């Protein structure tokens, strides 16, 4: 079966809901649909879908506009609050990492005041300090976000 050039006319008539009433003006189109496989099939499907649309729309139990607006407002505000919290959590992460860095530096200085203890290479100490910061920063972030 091939598409028919008269399909738009047929769809238009069905959508207007006057296919069944068959006004005089549609007589010729109806006769065409009766003998054209594509248009005949189209009429059957379009009528069924149109009818279903009317029933489903009637059955729709949608919330009131005011309720949907109110929920959207609440949600938008909460999202705005969440956005405002985000820079704070990043700052908390940074502060945590800095604190860990300072603590590591002090520990290093304190270590050096005891010459009896084994004294590692300063480069190893630096790498160790950086490593601590890298581990601590995400941990602080995770805890800060979990609290929210």
């Amino acid at each position, binding site marked *: 079966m091939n598409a028919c050039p008269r399909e738009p006319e047929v769809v238009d008539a069905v959508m207007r809901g006057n296919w069944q009433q068959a006004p005089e003006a549609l007589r010729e189109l109806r006769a065409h649909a009766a003998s054209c496989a594509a248009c005949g099939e189209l009429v059957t499907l379009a009528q069924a879908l149109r009818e279903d649309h009317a029933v489903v729309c009637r059955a729709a139990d949608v919330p009131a506009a005011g309720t949907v607006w109110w929920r959207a407002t609440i949600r938008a505000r909460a999202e705005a609050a969440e956005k405002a*919290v985000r820079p704070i959590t990043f700052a908390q992460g940074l502060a945590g990492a800095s604190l860990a860095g300072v603590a590591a530096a002090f520990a290093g200085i304190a270590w050096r005041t005891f010459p009896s203890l084994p004294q590692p290479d300063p480069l190893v100490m630096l790498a160790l300090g950086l490593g601590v910061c890298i581990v601590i920063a995400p941990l602080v972030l995770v805890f800060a976000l979990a609290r929210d």
Partner: protein
Amino acid sequence: MRDVTLSSLERLGLGAADAEEKLTFCMDEDAFRLFYDRTARPVWAYLARITGDRQLADDLLQESYYRLLRSRAVLEDEAHRRNYLFRIATNLAHDARRRAPMDTAPLDDGIEHDQPDPRTAGDATGRAVRRMDLSRAMRQLKPRERSLLWLAYAQGSTHFEIAQTLGLKTGSIKPLLFRARRRLSALLQEGAR
């Protein structure tokens, strides 16, 4: 849908006025109410039919309007806004169905059928059976085919509107629609046998 309160705002010391400043909706409340009252039922019907799930349609309806309100797209007139809303609804429904494909088995769509008038009870029963067959056949189509058919023949959208809603080229609608129609017709005939 997330259930949220203002408590997190209050904890931050952000008052209602500050929060209001951060609320950027693409229309004001009066315009929204008018628009919603004109579109909510058709959007719900579309969502219910293409997802086959009333509950999901309820959730996606709220989500669709929220995304529309928050959108930064330039929506010049009501027709454009409406197409955009249906596009959001389509994407949400198709995403939901990708995560949880539609069950093709159940017959009852949960949508009540017309109360039969005793004088036309035969007609009403016939219509109910036709609707049930249609519902079952629709469920066996691909999501895009369902959308195409519903938009074209249930809603009477033009090819341009359908293209806008589904993110397709206007010229591709005619052959796609024809193929979807043929498939639906074949499924209905199969069901009748």
